[in-house]
């Protein structure tokens, strides 16, 4: 065992410790009673309990000042609805547009791509501030539809950016051959282009879902309590007084479980999407 290898092992262990410890610790906390959490010195040995999760799911929390009704499950549902619908809408809008950008060189296309790209990096509050005032006038303040439309700012550029690259990688002659066989451009798009770009579309959809789920500022400004996703809901949860710390931990775990599960399940797509989107273009 050379010194180099030992050093490498130690460094790797430290890295693993730094990045994984918080996840493990908060997960452990979610199974502790408040008494166990407040015990000093803190102990790894404890009898686990499911009461925190049970309380969250039931929607009723026992605190120092009595029972408190908080509907965290609604927040989870909101996250799911907002993220899934945003991604679906972005796919419907973005995949054909990405195809147009990839196959046709038209002036407006380059300008549009440039604009969308530059707004990807713009401060969201710049757009959200006026939008919030508009939404109140338009009556969109408390609706899923309003937020889903605004979420397109996050999901649509991502889909366009990644899927265009995949369409460009498909040899045009395959599509030409199919058209010469007698099929219209629509059939060619649906039966040849889209199936061949499927890995890219999947990667883009996955990334878009995760970004939408993790979004905070959009929902903070434009959402009201009935449609708030978990990111905002968790903050409200913590600031409400007298909440049991184990329940807070459980709430946090529930909020990150979907994205963590998705990441583990589809990590290859994810890495490809991340590095491709950032480097290849």
């Amino acid at each position: 065992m050379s010194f180099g290898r030992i050093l490498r092992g130690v460094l790797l262990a430290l890295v693993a410790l730094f990045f994984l410890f918080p996840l493990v610790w908060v997960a452990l906390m979610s199974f502790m009673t408040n008494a166990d959490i407040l015990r000093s010195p803190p102990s790894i040995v404890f009898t686990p309990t499911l009461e925190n999760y049970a309380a969250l799911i039931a929607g009723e929390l026992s605190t120092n000042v009595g029972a408190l009704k908080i509907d965290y499950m609604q927040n989870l549902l909101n996250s799911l609805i907002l993220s899934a619908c945003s991604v679906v809408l972005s796919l419907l809008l973005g995949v054909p547009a990405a195809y147009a950008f990839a196959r046709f060189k038209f002036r407006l296309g380059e300008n549009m791509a440039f604009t969308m790209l530059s707004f990807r990096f713009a401060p969201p509050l710049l757009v959200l501030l006026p939008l919030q005032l508009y939404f109140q006038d338009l009556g969109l303040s408390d609706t899923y539809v309003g937020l889903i439309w605004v979420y397109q700012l996050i999901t649509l550029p991502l889909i366009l950016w990644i899927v265009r690259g995949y369409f460009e990688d498909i040899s045009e002659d395959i599509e030409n051959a199919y058209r010469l066989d007698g099929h219209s451009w629509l059939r060619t798009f649906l039966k040849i282009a889209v199936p061949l770009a499927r890995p890219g579309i999947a990667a883009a959809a996955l990334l878009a879902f995760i970004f939408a789920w993790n979004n905070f500022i959009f929902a903070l400004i434009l959402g009201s309590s009935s449609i708030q996703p978990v990111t905002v809901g968790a903050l409200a949860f913590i600031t409400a007084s007298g909440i049991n710390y184990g329940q807070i931990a459980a709430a946090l775990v529930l909020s990150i479980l979907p994205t963590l599960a998705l990441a583990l399940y589809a990590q290859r797509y994810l890495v490809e999407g991340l590095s491709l989107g950032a480097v290849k273009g």
Partner: protein
Amino acid sequence: MATITANTAPRTRRRAGPGLLPYLLSLPALLVTIGILIPFATAVYYSLQRYNLAFPAGRRMIWLDNFVALFSDGRFWGTIQVSLTYTVLTVGVQLLLGLGIALLLVRRTLVNDLMSVLLILPLMVAPAIASLMWKLMTNPNFGILSYFANSLGFTDFRWASDPSTAMFTVVLVDTWVYTPFIAILLLAGLRALPRQPFEAAELDGVPRSFVFFRITLPMLLPYILTASLFRMLDSIQQFDIVYAMTQGGPGDRLMLFQVRAYLEAFTFTNIGRSAAILMVLWAITFALSNIFIKQWLRLRARAHGRA
């Protein structure tokens, strides 16, 4: 019998072009683009006004007065300084750490591949949630990190509640969330590097440090630049992490651009000033992203020219 002749006068003129189809296909995306431009124009408009929701009667155009007021305000310069500090610290630390991790994981062993997968996880956590997680861990009463700090002799280390350690705390959270992004990117870059230069260097007996600094790093430069620009743009406009942790406090210690703008708009209802702050931030991010996009377009053109 086939006959072929050339260079006779053309008989008909036809215009080449893809027709309406591309415009139809991208129409919905175009609508979204317009949908962004309208609020943007409105924000520009607001920044030129004295506009406070609490005093609707006093609303009027004051053109650049908001900006003049900002740049003569010490607190605004404080915001600029805080934002720059945050950006430099996060990008610097994350680049070094990310590069180190990528180098550790570059060989494809079972352990390394497993680590690569596990390392993605912090990146998948919402930054706001990550802040809340670290807030729990640094709680003075039961936080595990407070306990560790105490045992190491740092009694009364107050993490985000203390003005002298607040910046350290949020930079720590940011590093926890975003270093994996840089590590993944640089790892992909390292694996994509051509083998010949390294094999040649090995044959020639070139020392490892030379190989690293004069061969590896220069070839990794595009990836490093990409990663840096991405992170710089994210950090200078950071909101989620800071807001979830302290809402900008203690005092003004963590008043980054967007946090300040948020408070101006939603606590002090000063829409005009908030919009002005955002315009300054936008100018910075626009300049930075332009550099990035130009580079990226040039790389694309080169790749396609070759293809």
